[in-house]
């Protein structure tokens, strides 16, 4: 059977022709885009219906594995070619893409891009059905599916890994249902939609909640290290991003170590350093200039409204010792006060009124607004320039903008708030990073108040500069990133790397806090064999690819980096600008092209480990429910445990299931980041009890000597 396609590229009969182009990138570290969309792209076109949309998220020590399964239905009585659009975030590593054809799952392999294209084209000529997934821009990937028969279904599944950003011990996961990969289209389930999220953490979980769908989610706390959230609806209104946030309890600064090592191979580690509450807050007044993008692109996705709400929340967090100014810009900047005003009711009200009348229109030219903001610099007060924008500026302006960032006043920092889901994350991140600040990203379903509070706390507490972390005692290499960023209060710092052999090691942390040196060491153990965290292997490879690309771009040529990027992409199944996913019909075809089934093996390993994790989590659930029953004291608590809105009380007490009941993977150690305190090495631990023992012994010694003196006196008389 030969079927016509609009593009004429595919004339496959029996099953499927897949052209996948594209891939995506950019979003916030706290965001996960996953609204897959299938568009009938042949004939009269039209949107195919989504019969089923299931998302299963497993978060294991801050790394999220998202598995999206969608079943699309062709409602028309004709064969159609469909275009599959699927955005996933920058920083997410696509682990697999599968399609079910005739009930059989087809798994792809990552191949060098040009070669993959040649193989694909060769099949195209003989009308067979390979699939190809390519990264074509920073934002989306696309895949053509052909044919979808009249009134038939097509099932697809994508799995990707992503590390979640933590902010003040809150990790946020966003599933952006509101994001349309193409303007004017919307991914919305007509049938069943379900999202289940399981969070496992070595650091105890305090709360799990959904700021966006507070009433729809059921949250259950099975154990202090294992929470679960679930949402299921049929044809419901799902036009808002799904946002889930969980809070872990790390009151003290600490490091956590996660390893992965197969026998006979070098291991991988992920070291996370999280600053705690012991950093004292500064009472020094600060100046804030909020730079708000009011260009036309900010009208989409309610970005402007989101920005207004965010600024309002940020200004409310400022203290009376602070001053602020508002600048709006599209092609030209406009200021509110023309000076820095103290934070007072009157100035806040003026700001609210000023924001209300702003309308999105025109282009985005950020440079003049930044230059205007820098003029508010005062040598005696820190200046924080807070840019709220989608970062969709003219390409030609970006170099100028980055140069301008370098010439900022000495005490100025630039913080970028990426607003909405369609954000130029690389640009905003680069601006913030090069200006000594931070980039944060807000989704429509997020909590402005929490983000604003966290942002304010970061600014009030001292950051650690010149951070250096080294592992001593084991041979490590390929550590990413090579240059660690500044450490801000409430934001963890992550370091990936490889190690030769397992064993005890010492982590040495050196930094500078408020001019005082910090030098601490803690002992850790790198596992000789650990297969419970295969996800960090991909995350390490992705980090290395990202660095290679950045370095190559800075050097002005990618030629020298491409081979290594291809090697990593193929080895770790990562789609990049130089590698693509290629799906062939069967194993024989892979053998014919001498394509190793590395992804198939890796996928099998990942799925096996996911199964192990699921089994362990099921045991935790079973234990938590063991006491449930008519006569159980826990019965009432369990019924409370099913309530929506907030984290439920545990069905079993936290003590019922110890952290050790979960897969051991992370090793946590506390540190002390108080300015001027350098600690963490070896030392004797004399404590109050030891002091009391010493006191008693000293008392005995004193009594002994006093008793001796009369004896000695009498002895003298005897002599």
């Amino acid at each position, binding site marked *: 059977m030969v079927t016509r396609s609009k593009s004429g590229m595919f004339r496959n009969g029996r099953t499927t022709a897949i052209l996948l182009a594209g891939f995506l990138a950019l979003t916030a570290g706290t965001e996960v885009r996953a609204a897959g969309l299938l568009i009938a792209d042949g004939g009269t076109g039209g949107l195919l219906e989504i019969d089923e949309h299931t998302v299963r998220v497993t978060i294991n020590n801050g790394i999220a594995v998202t598995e999206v399964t969608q079943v699309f239905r062709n409602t028309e009585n004709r064969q159609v070619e469909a275009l599959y659009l699927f955005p996933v975030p920058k920083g997410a590593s696509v682990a697999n893409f599968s399609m079910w054809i005739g009930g059989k799952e087809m798994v792809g392999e990552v191949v060098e891009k040009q070669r993959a294209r040649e193989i694909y084209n060769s099949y195209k000529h003989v009308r067979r059905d390979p699939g190809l997934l390519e990264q074509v821009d920073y934002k989306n990937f696309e895949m053509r599916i052909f044919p979808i028969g009249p009134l038939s279904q097509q099932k697809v599944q994508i799995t990707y890994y992503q590390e979640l950003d933590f902010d003040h011990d809150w990790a946020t996961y966003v599933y952006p249902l509101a994001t349309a990969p193409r303007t004017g289209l919307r991914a919305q389930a007509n049938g069943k939609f379900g999202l289940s999220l399981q969070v496992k953490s070595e650091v105890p979980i305090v709360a799990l909640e959904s700021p966006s769908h507070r009433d729809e989610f059921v949250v259950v706390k099975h154990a202090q290290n294992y929470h679960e959230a679930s949402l299921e609806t049929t044809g419901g209104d799902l036009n808002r991003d799904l946002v889930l946030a969980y809070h872990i309890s790390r009151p003290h600064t600490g490091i956590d170590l996660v390893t992965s090592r197969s026998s006979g191979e070098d291991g991988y580690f992920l070291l996370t350093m999280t600053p705690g509450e012991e950093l004292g807050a500064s009472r020094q007044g600060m100046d804030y200039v909020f730079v708000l993008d009011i260009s036309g692109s900010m009208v989409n996705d309610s970005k402007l409204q989101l920005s207004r709400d965010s600024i309002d929340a940020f200004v409310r967090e400022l203290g009376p010792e602070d001053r602020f100014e508002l600048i709006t810009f599209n092609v030209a900047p406009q200021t509110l006060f023309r000076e820095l005003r103290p934070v007072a009711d009157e100035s806040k009200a003026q700001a609210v009124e000023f924001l209300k009348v702003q309308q999105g229109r025109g282009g985005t030219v950020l440079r003049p607004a930044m230059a205007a903001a820098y003029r508010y610099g005062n040598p005696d007060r820190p200046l924080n320039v807070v840019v709220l924008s989608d970062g969709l500026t003219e390409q030609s302006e970006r170099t100028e903008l980055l140069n301008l960032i370098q010439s900022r006043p000495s005490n100025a920092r630039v913080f970028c708030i990426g607003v909405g889901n369609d954000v130029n994350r690389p640009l905003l991140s680069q601006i913030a990073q090069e200006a000594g600040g931070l980039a944060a990203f807000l989704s429509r379903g997020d909590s402005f108040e929490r983000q604003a509070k966290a942002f304010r706390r970061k600014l009030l507490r001292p950051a650690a500069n010149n951070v250096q972390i080294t592992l001593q005692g084991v041979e490590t290499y390929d550590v990413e990133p090579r240059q660690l960023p500044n450490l801000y209060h409430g934001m963890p710092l992550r370091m990936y790397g490889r190690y030769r052999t397992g064993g005890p090691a*010492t982590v040495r942390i050196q930094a500078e806090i408020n001019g005082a040196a910090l030098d601490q060491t803690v002992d850790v153990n790198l596992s000789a064999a650990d297969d419970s965290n295969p996800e960090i292997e991909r995350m390490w490879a992705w980090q290395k690819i990202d660095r290679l690309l950045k370095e190559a771009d800075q050097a002005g040529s990618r030629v020298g980096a491409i081979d290594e990027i291809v090697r990593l992409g193929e080895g770790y199944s990562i789609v990049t600008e130089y590698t693509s996913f290629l799906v062939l019909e069967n194993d024989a075809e892979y053998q014919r092209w001498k394509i190793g089934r590395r992804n198939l093996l890796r996928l099998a390993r990942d799925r096996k480990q996911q199964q192990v994790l699921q089994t362990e989590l099921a045991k935790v659930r079973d234990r938590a429910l063991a006491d449930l029953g008519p006569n159980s004291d826990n019965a009432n608590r369990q019924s409370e445990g099913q309530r929506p809105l907030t984290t439920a009380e545990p069905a079993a007490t936290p003590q019922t299931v110890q952290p050790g009941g979960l897969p051991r993977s992370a090793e946590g*150690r506390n540190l002390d980041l108080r300015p001027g305190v350098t600690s963490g090495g*070896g030392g004797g631990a004399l404590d109050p009890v030891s002091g009391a*023992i010493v006191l008693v012994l*000293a008392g*005995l010694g004193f009594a002994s000597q006093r008793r001796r003196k009369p004896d000695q006196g009498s002895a003298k008389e005897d002599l």
Partner: protein
Amino acid sequence: MDPSSSFTAARRLPGASLLLVTIAAAVSLLPGVAECLQYDRLAVAQGALWRLVTSHFVHWSGEHLFWDVLALGLLGWMCERESAGWFLACVAVSAALIPLILWIAEPQMMTYRGLSGIDSALFAMLAVRIGQRAVTDKDRLRLGLTGVVAVGFAAKVAYELVTGDTLFVDSSAAGMTPMPLAHVVGGLVGMGCALCESFWSYKTW
């Protein structure tokens, strides 16, 4: 030994102990000095041998300093008033031996600070002395109390040695890694000094 000289010695100020306490306290007031004086395995390997001894006189935190100095003050006072010579010998041997043993036995330990090893040496020396004296005096109560205190201290150190964790304090929160081996070495040095002192006194007598 002239008892009168012993009695006089017992009344005099424990000058050496006070000096050591003062040094430890003074160093803590000088910012940046601790980093130059602490046991730093890499620096020692590069020839900064003085760190082996000076590491005892720097601390990780105010609390760490307080308990170590308090113990040194009390134990040093008791030991020094008995015999300044043996007190200094105990301090010198433990100060030298503890870092050396740690160097050999704890290659992963990059840094070390604190007087607690020397404190443990003085504790053991004093406990042995009191015990010996209680035996001589046939004072069972004092002997029993000394035994309880000594066993309690030893049990604490043993717990730390076996579990790698501290018993009464959160060492992580205190910002240090417990190093009970230093206490073990110190304790053995103190016991050795006390026994040598007895043997020496017996021979000379």
